């Protein structure tokens, strides 16, 4: 659609607003991989409850809104091997790098964090090379 960029800008604004609320309200960086990862590996400690509630909001409210709006599609691949490999890489990589698109990308770049900028350059670069290799060379995705 031609107005996709406008939806992108509006949705992006909401993502930034959410990050601003989490920062100014709770004093936390809104990083999805850190929030989930800390629950998974038990390092969340006293933040367990607020992180779980963040995830309840993140899962539950889009679920309701999208259901009422008539549904949506992720158009994800149905190749189970690709999905498993991708999930493992995303889980491992974000926790080893200590951040993902929201933490390093949105929250890091917006405060000119060198780590955030470097991480973003590397994950976008690796993503681009992966597309070339697996879509255009191997034709898997």
């Amino acid at each position, binding site marked *: 659609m031609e107005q996709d960029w406008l939806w992108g800008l509006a949705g992006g604004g909401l993502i930034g607003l959410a990050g601003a609320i989490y920062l100014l309200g709770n004093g936390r960086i809104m990083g999805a991989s850190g929030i989930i990862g800390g629950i998974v590996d038990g390092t969340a400690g006293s933040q367990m409850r607020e992180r779980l509630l963040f995830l309840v909001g*993140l899962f539950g409210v*889009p679920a309701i809104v999208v259901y009422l709006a008539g549904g949506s599609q992720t158009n994800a691949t149905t190749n189970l091997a690709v999905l498993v490999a991708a999930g493992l890489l995303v889980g491992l990589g974000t926790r080893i790098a200590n951040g993902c698109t929201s933490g390093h990308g949105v929250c890091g770049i917006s405060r000119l964090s060198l780590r955030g900028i470097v991480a973003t350059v590397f994950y976008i670069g690796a993503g681009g090379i992966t597309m070339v290799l697996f879509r255009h060379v191997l034709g898997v995705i």
Partner: protein
Amino acid sequence: MRDLLAALSGAIFGIGLWLSGMTDTTKVQGWLDIFGDWDPTLAFVMGGAIVPMAIAWQLTRGRAPLVGGSFPAPPEARLGRNLVIGSVLFGMGWGLAGLCPGPAVASLSWGGLPGIVFMLAMIAGMWAAPRLRQRLDGQPVSI
């Protein structure tokens, strides 16, 4: 209050991800695929998110969080190989499926079996990460 703000933030994050098209893997892969039919949407999403977030960082100066406590410390200056190795692994997975952690949770209710398989594998990766990371540099995972 803390709990309410966390849920509110998660909810707005999720709606933003959906509205912006970032729960649609073809838009994410379309942005990464510069040799295909390139889709610039993700750049607008990033730009749109960074502006309010940069204002929020400015507002932290001389203040404390609404619920008390303190704001995050300034970012570490040290880059370290974990940052690079981890980001490369993440980027590969992100490219393969077009999903990253936030959109994976937000779209779980309508993403069907692919969304559930990706989520379980991601959780397994997150569970295994501290062990691998300790081998990489002998330091435990923080946050």
